[in-house]
């Protein structure tokens, strides 16, 4: 190898680094710039929001947010969103975690098929299902209720709950449970004394993810609720009439919890993808 070879190799490596850094910067900007504008506009006074050019530094004016809080029906919608999301969280974990445990610990016929089908529930476009669902919900009296909407959101969240908990349970060696059985535990007490304490953070993460799915969902919410709209559905309905600064404030209120929660549970989401890619 000559000196020129070494230097071209190094140059190639360096340009590779630049390309990599540029891609990372571009992707970050793609995500962060809109969020930054959202932040600036939320924390600006209504007048600034409607004027041009925009400042690059937020004014820390709480006018928009105050207006948002005072807007008719907004707080009720916020409350509905929280109620539906919490119900979704509880139901998807109650159903998803046992399914994840069964997938990771037992061998049964159709296991691979089940894992596929669980994901397939997400393959149906929601608009296709929304109308028949709305009709069915009206017949059963589930329409326009928090529990009804939470049921729909639960079906959306369950695939993730199953796959995340499946990967979590698979990460706990079966020997730990077996050791507990030989030390005087039944299957149930081994689960509560050994598996549960180890898996609790992951279950919490999976629950938070279900919360975020419900929190962000707009289509089913818009179709299935009228009086008891969630925040997303409410904002969608009011998009036409609401002033710009209200939309920004609403968007901000929607984005922040989702962002914070997803950031908190990112480790577990990677785990899920790691398993799902196999």
């Amino acid at each position: 190898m000559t000196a020129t070879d070494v230097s071209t190799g190094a140059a190639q490596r360096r340009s590779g680094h630049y390309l990599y850094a540029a891609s990372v910067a571009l992707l970050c900007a793609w995500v962060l710039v809109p969020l930054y504008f959202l932040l600036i506009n939320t924390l600006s006074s209504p007048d600034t929001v409607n004027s041009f050019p925009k400042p690059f530094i937020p004014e820390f004016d709480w006018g928009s947010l105050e207006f948002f809080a005072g807007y008719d029906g907004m707080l009720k919608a916020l409350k509905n969103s929280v109620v539906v999301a919490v119900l979704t969280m509880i139901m998807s974990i109650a159903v998803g975690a046992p399914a994840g445990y069964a997938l990771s610990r037992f061998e049964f016929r159709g296991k691979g098929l089940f894992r596929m089908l669980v994901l397939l529930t997400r393959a149906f476009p929601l608009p296709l299902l929304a109308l028949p669902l709305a009709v069915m919900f009206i017949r059963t009296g589930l329409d326009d209720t928090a529990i009804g909407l939470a049921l729909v959101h639960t079906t959306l969240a369950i695939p993730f709950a199953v796959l995340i908990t499946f990967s979590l349970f698979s990460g706990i060696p079966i020997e730990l449970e077996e050791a507990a059985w030989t030390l005087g535990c039944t299957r149930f007490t081994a689960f509560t004394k050994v598996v549960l304490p180890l898996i609790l953070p992951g279950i919490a993460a999976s629950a938070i993810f279900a919360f975020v799915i419900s929190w962000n969902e707009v289509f089913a919410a818009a179709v299935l609720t009228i009086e008891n709209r969630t925040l997303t559905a409410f904002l969608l309905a009011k998009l036409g009439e609401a002033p710009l600064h209200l939309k920004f404030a609403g968007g901000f209120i929607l984005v922040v919890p989702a962002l914070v929660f997803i950031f908190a549970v990112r480790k577990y989401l990677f785990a899920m993808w790691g398993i799902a890619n196999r």
Partner: protein
Amino acid sequence: MAEIQIKGVAKSFGSYTALHDINLTIQDQEFMVLLGASGCGKTTLLRIVAGLETATTGEVWIGGKRVDHLPPKDRGIAMVFQNYAVFPHLTVFENIGFGLRMKKVPNDEVKRRVERTAGLMHIEQLLGRYSGELSGGQRQRVAVARALAMEPDVILMDEPLSNLDALLRMEMRAELKGVLAESNTTAIYVTHDQVEAMSMADRISVMHQGRIVQAASPIEVYRNPAAEFVAGFIGNPPMNFLPATPQGAGKWAVAGQVLDGPQTQKALKFAIRPEDLHLAGQGLQAVAKVIEPLGAHLLVTCEVDGALFRAVLDSDLSVKPGDTLTLAPQSDRIRWFDPETTRAVA
């Protein structure tokens, strides 16, 4: 009193049969080692005794009680796992006391027994730590202490030393043997390491392809292997084999030499351990191929009549590759095997 009886136990996984009709009795307080290569069914057999696996057919009795339908917790056993299975969310103290807590043993009694077993395993100073703060060897000690704290009738061990480095393994081997001998429990110990088996066992059950080929004391297994598999598996280097042709009246021709052997007319295999060969004026003509000085002795790999043959000789000897050695087998150590049944012939 905890005698273990395994009666006609078989286990199939679908069309694959992992265990064929195993019958084995382990005496009270006996140290039984199940020895075999990986995949021979030794771990499956242990797990059936533990109740972690159900036998397809057959019965397991512990201490005169049939237990094969009972869950692990009702069998009076404790188990040490290959990867230790120390609970990561509990301290060493709570790990060792876990089984006692499950049995609702009073607090001060738990404390007394945890401290006693921790003392036996020399881990008193680690009681406040978590599994993540321990080395492999320390985790191993916790796992053993946790099993001993239960004061079980039977202790089951699945390759407990295989994840330790060589030096630590040797140390733990001796320690474990001492501790178990004092605890008066019946032990079943699964390993693929013949040195572990030889050094610790009261009795060794050599397993091969889901069957117990021989169950006997270590020295018996070594000196009088019941089958060709045992002879080739036990001993490092293993036994040498040569074809033998009958010459009538208990005389056998082995590589041009005539030796005394059993009174049968079938073709047999002659077998001898490498250390039972000596240089002599008359014997098997061996051409040395590879010479490996091992310090205490010289391991010479040679060719006798076209077959691979090993001899362990005195390390003072000077041998070069290509030299022809005359090796005389020690007559009382010669063994004979029937090549059709692979069993030993007296």
